[in-house]
């Protein structure tokens, strides 16, 4: 089975490639035919010939790169088995961000089929803004390992949101600046704040606006989310402001009243990481699986073999092997920097006055 899987999905300089279907999955460079798991800029890149993805992912790519981000597109309906060349593919919810999907690739008929699942990024934690992850039984499970160390066990997100709200109560004269990835994390934080009963406006950095509007148009309740105008900043005492991670230490953030710097990320679990970023209120809210969920997911797929695309590969591969599951790291460089593209967006969005200040 292993050798057959290795033929079904190979590693090329552009990323994972399926020769029988002649397509790449989340290619790192422009290719002729791409299947895309989700809209984060490290997985969904500009300039492919043909892109197949969920309706939401295609919409997100259009928002980020413009309508002409690819020559042609094809909407993947969740759960629908579609033939591509000599294989079939199925998109299944991954629970990572709106529209995110795992991609199931299957070849062969009765008794001799081989099924691979490319998880993309995924999580099992609560998220009111996207469909939950669904485990898929398979022969080979291709997983990420962003938080693939046993020190990463994400806390209950409600406790983290409560921490933010408690700080807002204790420091009503200060603005709370929350760094969050513009796609997914930002909207999840907004939705969680609403669930916790927070009904004040949640102020947004300009770079958050279009994607937040898109989430709202998909029927996700986020409440009132005005965009921060440069002139408003000094008056936003006691406000919660959400901005891209790159902006929390930026000139832009200085104009708020005595800002409290918060950052919503799984990395905030490690103190040195939080300190390094100058974060004063770390919020451990992640859109990736923690260690327990990675292990649980691997077991649930009943895969005989696990390939680890990126992240803390060594620990997860060690864990698999110690449980008799064949495993190998793929060392795919280029994934894991969801922030990269967004930093540029934040920059592009800053008004000239802000860039000057």
């Amino acid at each position, binding site marked *: 089975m292993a050798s057959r899987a290795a033929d079904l999905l190979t590693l090329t300089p552009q990323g994972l490639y399926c020769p029988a279907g002649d397509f790449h999955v989340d290619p790192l460079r422009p290719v002729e035919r791409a299947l895309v798991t989700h809209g984060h800029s490290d997985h969904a890149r500009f300039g492919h010939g043909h892109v197949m993805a969920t309706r939401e992912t295609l919409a997100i790519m259009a928002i980020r790169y413009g309508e002409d981000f690819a020559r042609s597109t094809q909407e993947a309906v969740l759960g629908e088995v579609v033939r591509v060349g000599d294989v079939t593919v199925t998109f299944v919810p991954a629970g990572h961000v709106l529209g995110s999907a795992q991609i199931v690739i299957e070849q062969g008929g009765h008794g001799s089929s081989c099924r691979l699942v490319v998880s993309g990024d995924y999580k099992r934690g609560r998220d009111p803004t996207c469909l939950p992850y669904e485990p898929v039984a398979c022969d080979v499970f291709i997983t990420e390992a962003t938080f693939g160390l046993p020190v990463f066990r994400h806390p209950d997100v409600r406790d983290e949101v409560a*921490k933010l709200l408690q700080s807002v109560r*204790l420091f009503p004269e200060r603005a709370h600046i929350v760094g969050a990835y513009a796609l997914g994390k930002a909207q999840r934080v907004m939705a969680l704040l609403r669930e916790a009963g927070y009904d004040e406006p949640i102020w947004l950095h300009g770079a958050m606006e279009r994607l937040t509007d898109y989430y709202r148009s998909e029927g996700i309740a986020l409440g009132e989310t005005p965009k921060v105008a440069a002139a408003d900043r000094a008056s936003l005492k006691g406000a919660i402001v959400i901005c891209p991670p790159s902006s929390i*230490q930026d000139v832009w953030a200085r104009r708020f009243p005595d800002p409290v710097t918060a950052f919503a990320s799984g990395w905030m679990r490690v103190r040195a990481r939080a300190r390094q970023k*100058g974060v004063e209120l770390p919020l451990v809210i992640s859109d990736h699986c923690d260690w327990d969920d990675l292990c649980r997911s691997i077991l649930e797929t009943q895969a005989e073999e696990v390939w680890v695309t990126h992240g803390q590969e060594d620990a997860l591969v060690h864990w698999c092997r110690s449980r008799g599951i064949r495993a190998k790291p793929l060392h795919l460089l280029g994934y894991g920097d969801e922030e990269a593209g967004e930093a540029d967006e934040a920059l592009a969005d800053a008004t000239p006055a802000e860039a000057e200040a």
Partner: protein
Amino acid sequence: MNRFAGLIDRVGYEPRRNAKIRLLADYFRTTPDPERGFALAALTGALTFRHAKPGIIRGLAMERTDPVLFRLSRDYVGDTSETIALIWRAPDPRPPHAEAAAAGSPRSTADDGASFEASLREAPQDEDAGGRAAIGHNHPPADGPLLSEVVEGLTHAGKAELPALIASWLDALDETGRWALLKLITGELRIGVSARLAKTAVASLGEGIAPDDVEQVWHGLAPPYLDLFAWVEGRGERPESIDPAPFRPPMLAHPVEDEDFAKLDAADFRAEWKWDGIRLQAVAGRDGDGETVRRIYSRTGEDVSAAFPDLVEALDFDGALDGELLIVREGRVESFNVLQQRLNRKTVTPKMLTEFPAHLRVYDLLVLDGEDLRERPYDERRRLLEDLVARLGEPRIDLSPQIPFASWDDLAAARADPASAGAGPDADAIEGCMLKRADSPYLPGRPKGPWWKWKRDPYLVDAVMMYAQRGSGKRSSFYSDYTFGCWRDGESGPELVPVGKAYFGFTDAELLKLDRFVRNHTTQRFGPVREVAYGPDRGLVLEVAFEGIQRSARHKSGVAMRFPRINRIRWDKPAGEADRLDALERILSKGETEMHPTGGAGP
């Protein structure tokens, strides 16, 4: 314990002093006795546990974790206690079958009876409504140990019982709780809160109670400080200090500015040298059993007796002295550089005691033979002090002399040249004058008017900015730490060599300009550090003020500045006209001391 953990977690990330006080005060206000009292004890360093050692914790962690995963995790996290706190796994009390029904069955598989290891079971996300009670995944039972139970246990449990006790606490706490517990046990509770700050927060609970009022009663108190909280909250009497050798908050001076002298009459004041040492308070008294208790406190009330056994044994009196720690060799006061060498040593060795003999040069007497003298005028205290020092006849304790003067001009002359004004060879250890009103009582804190400090003018040098680094805390978005250099002759003509680093001395408005300069003139980036453009015809000149200079093998330039700060930004001055390294060498050659911070003897 969880509340305490939440507090120290939050405070540890908070850079602002006032916000720290608010967080602490909020905790003290909303946490019942005796929990808050033990928290106060932990924050002020009043807790030590005899048997609880880091080794126990490592042993426990090893029993429960895969060594490869532990090593990878430790390498990633960088801190052993934190790694253990994060990796620790409580045994799952749920029977293995309890969750098989709850776990989502894999899509399109024939067999959903997959048997998963119990230790990996976890409630899936959709089972949300009542799912928070699940144990093991950050949902510890609400009844984790109280801080008071932990303190009690760590204090009284025997060596053999400790591992099981600690393990049971770790099982019951969440990540932050475990981290706090481990930090408490290993004595590494460093979260940027001084004892003084914690006491300030306690004082803020009361009406009209100053931090110094808390300081006054502090040494008579013991955890969990029920009487202290009762007093600040207006429910009880002021606790009586029963410590025979308590710390008393020192009186501090304001810097005097040139224009102040017009309002001050020289006849109202006495003058003393301002010594470039370390301010100490030396206290001795008899306890209830007639035993003499001797203590040396730092200016902030820390008991530093252990570092100065040679001075402690000289405290043969009943009272409280205010003075300066100096190193005196062969009757001569050594410079601060030499004192620094003693202060840098972690442990006290007999060799160090002979090589760097500690000396106390006293200038005030707060208490004598049970009588509090602080209300008495300076002149009267001074007379009693002179008598006491003469009576002691102790070579390690002497009197800080007064400087005779009739007018401010006289004093200015003395300050400009202490060696000819009576200080003789001790002049190198003098950093200015102190002015004290003859009638001034000894008042805690920094009252404006009775005492002034008139510091020697700092040294100045014009240097060129070479690198800038982001600051910390509130200034983390600014390039606010500047490395600057002076010219020297290099292989291929004049070159700049870094001579120091400064991160204050400028106003907020100047910081904005400096920050903009850095951003607009960056030539290279190294992580948080930026190199800026510099050279004979480009670059920014900074006028740097500093208090002294010493040789340093660790610095490329061979010298290290003491207390450097930005005095002025010379936007006008061409970088080529900044000072040469020789200017610093000249200052150095005036001082006699060859300084080897690495501890070796001079050549």
